């Protein structure tokens, strides 16, 4: 396949970025999107240029490191697919592909397509945990959890924290991420004692990190590589409202 890439290049966090055009010739259709970038980078290096920087790790769709916005859609056109699991057969020969970093003020660009997503780590530090030891594996069987609740918690727990939800949101809102993390723990008996505190603190951390406000467009769930539904956001809104009301009234 022969493609034209329009790639965001930015030398440092503070420098001004721009779109640069690269030809991507003779790309095998079975290559993944990141492998395609590897091929292009090998050629750039051979010509003495600086390769296109991008984040990646497992390349199996489970680590949440890849963070490309492809043709304006985080992780590209395939639903429930990370950029590393996106294959070039989904594009057509001769296509022009726009590749940009995940854009949000809270995710500053470090270089080219690499963004700093440590804001998510700080939100987790604010409440995305259970404070006390809940026991080893055998103890888990002594705590009955209804199937529906276990399913809901597990579905939320599949969030890999990639940040595509923020990148897709026109408000740079982190509500899908935060709601998935809150739902994961608030749905389980082990997480319930800290339910109110968790909702309040994680939302406060989210606001302080400079993420925006959800306006219910649901672009986040559409691009989420783990198909986390926006119902989580409704649940977080409810948990937060009840916790804030309780906090103010007691």
């Amino acid at each position, binding site marked *: 396949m022969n493609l034209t890439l329009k790639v965001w290049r930015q030398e440092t966090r503070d420098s001004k970025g721009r779109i640069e055009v690269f030809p991507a010739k003779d790309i095998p259709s079975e290559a993944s999107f990141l492998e395609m970038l590897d091929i292009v980078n090998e050629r750039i290096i051979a010509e003495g240029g600086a390769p296109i920087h991008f984040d990646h790790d497992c390349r199996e769709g489970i680590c949440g490191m890849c963070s490309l916005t492809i043709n*304006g*859609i985080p992780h590209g056109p395939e639903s429930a697919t990370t950029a590393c699991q996106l294959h070039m057969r989904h594009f057509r020969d001769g296509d022009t592909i726009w590749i940009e970093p995940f*854009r949000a003020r809270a995710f500053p660009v470090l270089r080219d397509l690499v963004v700093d997503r440590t804001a998510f780590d700080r939100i987790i530090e604010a409440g995305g945990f259970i404070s006390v030891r809940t026991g080893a594996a055998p103890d888990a069987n002594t705590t009955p959890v209804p199937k529906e609740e276990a399913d809901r918690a597990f579905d939320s727990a599949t969030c890999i924290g990639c940040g595509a939800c923020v990148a897709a949101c026109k408000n*740079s809102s982190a509500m899908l991420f935060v709601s998935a993390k809150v739902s994961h723990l608030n749905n389980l008996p082990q997480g319930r004692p800290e339910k109110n505190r968790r909702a309040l603190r994680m939302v406060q951390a989210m606001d302080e990190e400079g993420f925006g*406000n959800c306006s219910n467009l649901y*672009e986040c769930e559409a691009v989420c590589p783990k198909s986390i539904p*926006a*119902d989580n956001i409704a649940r977080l809104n409810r948990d937060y*409202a009840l916790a804030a009301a309780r906090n*103010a009234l007691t």
Partner: protein
Amino acid sequence: MNALACMIGSFWDSSIGKKILVALTGIALLLFLSGHLAGNLLLFMGKDAINEYALWLHELAHGAAIWVARIGVLTALIVHVHLTIQLSIRNKAIRPNYSHPGTVQASRSSRMMIWSGLTILAFVLYHISHFTLRIGNDYNGGTYQTSLPGHEDKVLNVYQMMIDGFSHPANALFYIIAMTLLCSHLSHGFASVFQTLGLRSAKNGALIKQIGRAYALLIWIGFLSIPGAILFFGYGRP
């Protein structure tokens, strides 16, 4: 009282809290719209029906009820508009634009909420100056006083105000544009209320969306029937 103020204060300062206040004031405005529409449709019951209704509104609880309602709706409107403008400005400031933007499933209505909202706001200001404050017209004059069966004094001829008001094509056009954008605003806003208040789930999500759209469509048809009947079918015109 202190606890309530404390709660509103904590909501006012947080992202989700602000959205909850927008949703609650949105509910107040949704309820107002249905009431306002029901009242307006009395136009089709004839001159005396709507004039009687207008008089009743103004005299309810010795004239206190209308002021309580006005202050309530105005407060809801101010909070709703203030917070949504504040949120929109902040959201825009923290989101750098893509060189090649893309959208997957967000509806057009949902993406233009602030613009439909601001147009509706402009319309509301005009509408209040037109029919409530009656600026730039002679609705306060003697020609708009009429008799009503069962009442000795002359009453305001709201019926004639509506007929004359919508006989102006420019008036009717602005009204039609505003009501169309209101329909768009409601089709996203109605369902959004449920999401923001945490009442939407996987089970009821689709139903809430459909009810929201149906409500928006009903409001649109209902309000448009008035200028439509007057301007295009000559209802009430000599």
